[in-house]
């Protein structure tokens, strides 16, 4: 749009034709407004080192936080793996964490229910703990074909390849102690 505040001599095309930037890719295309532009990343309160959550290349990420919100995620040039690059998925990870469609509330669907209902997180945790204790007992096997197994077939779990090692460690530890063996993840798939 024509900027009335500046004279014709500031028109980029004129500066491109008359100045040294004949390709119009340098100073001919600049204005006071562009000079005043600052990268969003410059306003961050803090920059946190992270790793892309999608594939197993493990590209380095820098997470820019302002006012307790993620304002940008960029590739980490220091990473000897990725050298600052991110692919479309890694580049979209800011939207993964800030997307308005992301679910942030516990939802509950009762048996035969036709819609979600809301549920308090604490209550949900108690209900799940009750069900774990119950399913563990009802699926308990002391022996299998005469051999001791001391396990429960009442509970199964799938998932872990998108989780942290520490999370998988506690999952395996807890379920093994509870006697659940059907503990699996994407690595089988």
């Amino acid at each position: 749009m024509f900027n009335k505040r500046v004279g014709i001599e500031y028109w980029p095309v004129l500066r491109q034709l008359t100045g040294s930037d004949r390709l119009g890719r340098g100073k001919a295309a600049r204005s006071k407004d562009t000079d005043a532009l600052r990268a969003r990343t410059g306003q961050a309160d803090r920059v946190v080192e992270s790793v892309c959550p999608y594939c197993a290349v493990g590209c380095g990420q820098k997470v820019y936080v302002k006012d307790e919100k993620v304002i940008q995620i960029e590739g980490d040039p220091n990473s000897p793996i990725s050298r600052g690059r991110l692919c479309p998925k890694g580049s979209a990870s800011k939207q993964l964490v800030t997307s308005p469609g992301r679910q942030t509330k516990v939802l509950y669907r009762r048996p035969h229910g036709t819609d979600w209902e809301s549920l308090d997180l604490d209550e949900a945790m108690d209900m799940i703990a009750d069900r774990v204790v119950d399913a563990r007992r009802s699926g308990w096997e002391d022996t299998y074909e005469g051999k001791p197994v001391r396990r429960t077939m009442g509970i199964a779990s799938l998932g872990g390849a998108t989780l942290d090692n520490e999370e998988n460690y506690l999952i395996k530890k807890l379920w093994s102690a509870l006697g659940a063996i059907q503990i699996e993840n994407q690595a089988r798939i």
Partner: protein
Amino acid sequence: MAECHPVGFQWVMEAKARGAKVFHVDPRFTRTSAVAHRHLPIRAGSDIVLLGALVNHVLSGGHDFREYVLNYTNAASIVGEDFRDTEDLDGLFSGYDAEKREYDPTSWAYQNGDAQAAAGARDEAKTDDDRSHEHGPGATFEATPSQTGHAPRRDETLEHPRCVYQILKRHFARYTPELVEEMCGIGPERFAELADAIVANSGRDRTTAFVYSVGWTQHTVGAQYIRTAAILQLLLGNIGRPGGGILALRGHASIQGSTDIPTLFNLLPGYLPMPYAHEHEDLDTYLERAAGDTGFWGNKRAYMVSLLKAWWGDAATADNDFCFDYLPRLTGDHGTYHTVLDQIAGKVKGYFLMGENPAVGSAGGRLQRQGLAATEWLVVRDLNLIESAEFWRNSPEIAAGETSPEQIATEVFFLPAAAHTEKDGTFTNTQRLLQWHHKALDPPGDARSDLWFIYHLGLRVRERLAGSTDRNDRPIQELTWDYPVEGPHDDPSAEAVLAEINGYDGDGRPLSGFTALKDDGSTSSGCWIYSGCYTGGVNQTARRRPGPEQSWVAPEWGWAWPANRRILYNRASADPEGRPWSERKAYVWWDGEQWTGHDVPDFEKTKPPSYEPPEGATAQDAIAGTDPFIMQTDGKAWLFVPKGLVDGPLPAHYEPQESPVANPLYAQQDNPARQLYPRRGNRYHPAGSTVYPYAFTTYRLTEHHTAGGMSRFLPYLSELQPEMFCEVSPALAAERGLTNGGWATIVTARTAIEARVLVTERMSPLRIQGRTVHQVGLPYHWGTSGVVRGDSANDLLPIVLDANTHIQESKAATCDIRPGRRPQGAALGALVRRYRRQAGIPED
């Protein structure tokens, strides 16, 4: 690789810029093909023919790296007289029991000896009393008590007719360029170009790398695909050396980590096997079966006892076998597919899905959703409302009128998860590198990390069982479950968990590494191969010394298991005397006093090349100074596997369960040990079916992530790849009347799905056994939820598994394809039934 691991692919391009020749073998032409020197379109499911022909080319042409092969592999080992090859038995190895559909591997052993499977990660054999029809054939496998060490008889001339080298030669002799043309659709000139390039680029001065992904694993012969590549790479001396290897590219941020610290039924942390049920099993008998006594697995008691100490702390003592009895026992295949069938049978009450979407991502989508609907209660933890959380109201079965929310009794809890930016922790990437990601901020609303969830669930369950006197509750009562908490939500400290994984000595100091582990209960470690990641009390995984400030190996970025080694078995990068094979490929070497080099040597630091094990030595003491493969019982890489695989000691080409052609090599059409589940909803197509005449394969796109839970809900990525489509060649389009941009319906015996048609020369029809075979390409990301929606390719697939890994065959199957959208409502089932009837498949 350019499509699914794009940033990793920059290193292939770097290599290309330095003169490396890049071949891309794939049914489809992709972004990788576009920049490769040569794209070789291949028929999905025929890779063992191609790799086997390369092995044959190396062996018959005398191109093997003889000094490497002789010293570092079991080529010279002599196999027992009872062994019979597929060449002798028309596609079967000796030991096959047709009724049980499984092998007894006894006859594969070395002459006058035996060898224990190297790693602990093996299913146990079924003994007769273990057998149960529920577990399907080939599901389990008994390891015999360990008799370990070097093969008793070797022939260093490699001429003995039963030495491994000669067995290989005979076995692969019929894997010829002509067979490659007939079965893979790759012509002899193209094959020669590939074979010559690989041979020319291997040896003292040069190395060749193979890179693969689930295109190799998701087959009924998946493990043997990798084995064939391993044989080839070992014959050429390309393992344990820079620029060599067989590199698995894994698709999830921590899928490697979830194998190392396994959420897998058959493993304990660090590839120790889960115990199987036996009448009188204690720690000793378990360890006897778990792994060999020689090589680094010989320290298995230290690894196992330290794990038990990490889990049960002071309660674990020498007097009570360190609580070994507290571990539940396996009796067969308890893998995810087996569990789903058990769910349908009403045997599994509760199910947790943690960052996984089987309704879209697992083979046999209808069965997956049936399983969810037959579960009493389900907990889904995810960032978004994925299909597996909403199957009760938006599944294809509801759309078809087969069921309704009112009929589905599953109680569903959806718990929002924290994102990677909202928690501390490590991912282990595809090169075994642990990288710490720092928490940037608190998760929103009810969102919590999985660490928070499992820790607080554990606390609540322990509370409920605290007063119990039932002895079965002791493992949970006595479990060490006390982590420091931080932040507004009492998040357990991920660093404290990592420190427990690393392990402590008797004085509570972090261990320096797995060699410090003791078998007397004085040390603890939650995963022995990760020990050292927190050495000195410092989080080694959080190290981020900038790449340009380090050597090309970059040892100070993150931490790689084991012991921060970046290339495994790197002692093989030096010759038997410890000298680099060449200056150009120098990596680690013996300097007269110790092993040194660019990487952490994968060898005892001061063990000289001249070391010879004394009689009766165990663990690493049994490994000679010239044996690089220190996890193997004999220190050698196994070209021939005398123990540890359930479907044969050598790879043989078998057709996929669903194939358009017959196997010309053997009378045996498919892998005789594969796991089959013929049942309602899971009917298989006969080979060469004219009703389902086309091959199809599934794959991922750059812009989406597996089952879509982390991509289809993002507007950016959805805009980039908005719609389910199928790729077909112009010839197939003409044959079936498909138009570019129009719709097609793809039909199998399981269901039919619709997709937009992309007519493209990227799909090439292949000449196989003198006729044209068409392949249909199907990305598998879509489902009924998300910003962009579409039918799921995985719904088309049957459940049929590799017996070694229990992984499904989803990279090769057959279908029909027809123009137009699929029928809606009851008409969909009618169409699928009509096809089944036509093909003579049993009614459901």
